[in-house]
């Protein structure tokens, strides 16, 4: 009888345990969410914009899409969002999950706009091998080119940066490359600040025009390090150009070591601390030397015997 109770109890515990594990692994979006459609088309532009949002908000846990390099979290690791197992879900289901979050996955209901969420879904869908119709419909066909060049033309007066992307065709003509996303960045203290804006795709002349921010500080002469590149290396390999331009606001950086401070060099010690230290040492050692001086006089006192 006792054994039977034990067996039932352990079976029950086992059941509860498996149920909780299964529960942790299966995360089903409600049926009602399935029908929702992605209102945005799968253009190169949207995919690329989705990739940017993905890299900022999703990549730190999920890793690169279709690469399987997610964070090894316990008990459930984040899914590879580029895998077929994940993309079997409808757009609506993915949208629901991004909104709600589950366990370690946070909710993005308020942190991302609807457009951003759909862009991410568009980007993820580009990995879906079963959905042919979503393959880059709006893609611009550029001719096969070699020797891709990115040229920067900087207008110092109105602070505009004009980037021009060209390549040499098989016939030997240099032609503009259209519809390619460029990134224009400025070097700051820790890394680069992207100033390309939302629409940095080359036009039919292969050009992207970027307005340099009015309030960005440069060095003493206003110099800043500019860097322009083709955002996606997949097209032509790494196409990159950098330039020092005097577009920034000239600033005189303050060296914190120049002022008198606790962290300064000895010469720049705060006055009060020098006074306290030196004063203390002089006072204490002054008394010590005074006593040593009096000590030397002790033998002389032996003579006056009154």
């Amino acid at each position, binding site marked *: 009888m006792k054994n039977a109770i034990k067996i039932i109890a352990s079976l029950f515990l086992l059941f509860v345990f498996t149920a909780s594990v299964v529960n942790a692994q299966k995360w089903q979006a409600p049926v009602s969410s399935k029908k929702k459609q992605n209102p945005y088309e799968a253009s190169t532009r949207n995919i690329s914009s989705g990739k940017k949002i993905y890299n900022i908000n999703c990549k730190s846990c999920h890793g690169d899409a279709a690469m399987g390099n997610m964070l090894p979290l316990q008990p459930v690791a984040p899914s590879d969002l580029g895998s077929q197992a994940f993309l079997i879900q409808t757009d609506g289901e993915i949208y629901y999950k991004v909104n709600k979050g589950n366990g370690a996955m946070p909710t993005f209901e308020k942190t991302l706009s609807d457009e951003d969420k759909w862009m991410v879904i568009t980007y993820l869908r580009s990995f879906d091998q079963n959905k042919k119709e979503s393959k880059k419909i709006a893609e611009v066909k550029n001719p096969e080119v070699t020797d891709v060049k990115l040229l920067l033309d900087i207008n110092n007066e109105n602070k505009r940066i004009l980037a021009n992307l060209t390549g040499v065709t098989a016939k030997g003509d240099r032609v503009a490359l259209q519809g390619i996303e460029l990134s224009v960045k400025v070097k700051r203290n820790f890394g680069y600040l992207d100033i390309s804006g939302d629409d940095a795709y080359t036009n039919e002349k292969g050009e992207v025009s970027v307005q340099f921010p009015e309030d960005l500080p440069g060095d003493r002469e206003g110099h800043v390090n500019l860097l322009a590149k083709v955002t996606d290396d997949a097209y032509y390999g790494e196409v990159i150009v950098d330039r020092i331009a005097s577009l920034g606001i000239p600033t005189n950086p303050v060296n914190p070591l120049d002022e008198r401070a*606790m962290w300064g060099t000895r010469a720049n010690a705060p006055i009060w601390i020098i006074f306290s230290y030196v004063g203390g040492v002089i006072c204490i050692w002054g*008394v*010590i030397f005074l006593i040593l001086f*009096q000590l030397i006089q*002790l*033998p002389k*006192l*032996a003579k006056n015997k009154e």
Partner: protein
Amino acid sequence: MNDLQEQKETTLSFEKIKKDILRPMQNHKGLELWIAFLITVISVCAWAYYVQLRDGLGVTGMRDYVSWGLYIANFVFFVAVSLVGMLISSILGLLRIDWITPISRIAEIIAVAFVAVAGLVIIMDMGRPDRVVNVLIHGRFQSPILWDITVVTTYLTISLLLLILPMIPDLAICKNELKKASPILKKLYNILSFGYINTPSQYKHLHKMIRTLMVLIVPVGLAIHTVTSWLFAATLRNGWDTTIFGPYFVAGAFVAGSAGLIVAMYFFRVSYKLKDYITDVQFDKMGKLMVAVCLVYLYFNLNEFLVPGYKMKTGDDIHLTELFAGHWAIMFWSSQLLGNVIPIMLLVTKKFRKPFPIMIISLFILAGAWIKRYVIVIPTLLHPHLPIQNVPQNFVHYYPSAIEISVTVLSFALALLIITVLSKIFPVVPICEIAEQKGIEVKIEA
């Protein structure tokens, strides 16, 4: 009872006091054996230091994270014990408390020995000890390291003066009485007695100097241990970043110093046969003093651990959990219980304040005090604010190497040797002060 005491006092003539106190300095076989033993230990351990000097600090267990290991724990311990000189001979002396007369010199000897070795421990902790002068040449006024070097040397100087100056009358006696002493010692007695023959003007002059020094050592004594605590408290690290560290260290130092003094008193009383001078009264009073300083220390501990333990800020949480229930729990609780709480409970009863029991209790307090310093220094370093990443396994833990332990033994042996040698060449109990206290006339021949 009163009659008995008076009878005993009258039998103590000046000649007897002199004989009793000077005897162990002239003829003491055990003492010479003890010195030989200490010198052997020091020579063996000096080899370990030589290895460290030759191969660098890599032979220690210290790595990038725990860069202050056993040595700094020792340093804090030595400084703490040395503070007893200021407590006994200065604070209690200025308050004119008379039972400290026979033990004040032992306190001063401990102070000199321990603060001298504390300075040496810092140098032993340096990979390039020849660069210690750079602290003085290039030291920044803002740096607690410079303050520390300054106060350690100042405290050593004043402690030395406070050892020698009250001893001048006794040294004049030594000069006259110790005919068989070696020529070097005779010369030393001659120089250090400063021609003292106890004239009224000399007496007045000398006591004025001593009183000045007694006042002077109070701020310096407080400074030495406060600055030692600032070496820690001037950082933002969990466990060190607290405002009460100065007084907390000073209170802890009084506990450790008093314990050291009681142990020394016991051994001098037995080995030098000084039962008539270092009496049960001194042990009883020291026991009461110990309860007082332990209670103050307990109060500081309560503040130091209960307040952050109540709030448990993220960094403090990791640190305190490790201390209370983690890797350091045994050391932490043994230092708190064996080194503080249980001694308080025992020493409130009179029978535990008898010489032998209180000496044993003091040994526990000393061990607890040392362990306490160890758990102050090392656990904090193992939990830096930035996570420890991609480092070799031996950066993540700290275990003192055999070399470090040997050098530690070296420093303890050195401190004991200094105490022994000082008590071999100088009278450990002030002859003239005892005589004065008992109303016996002091006679010093020219």
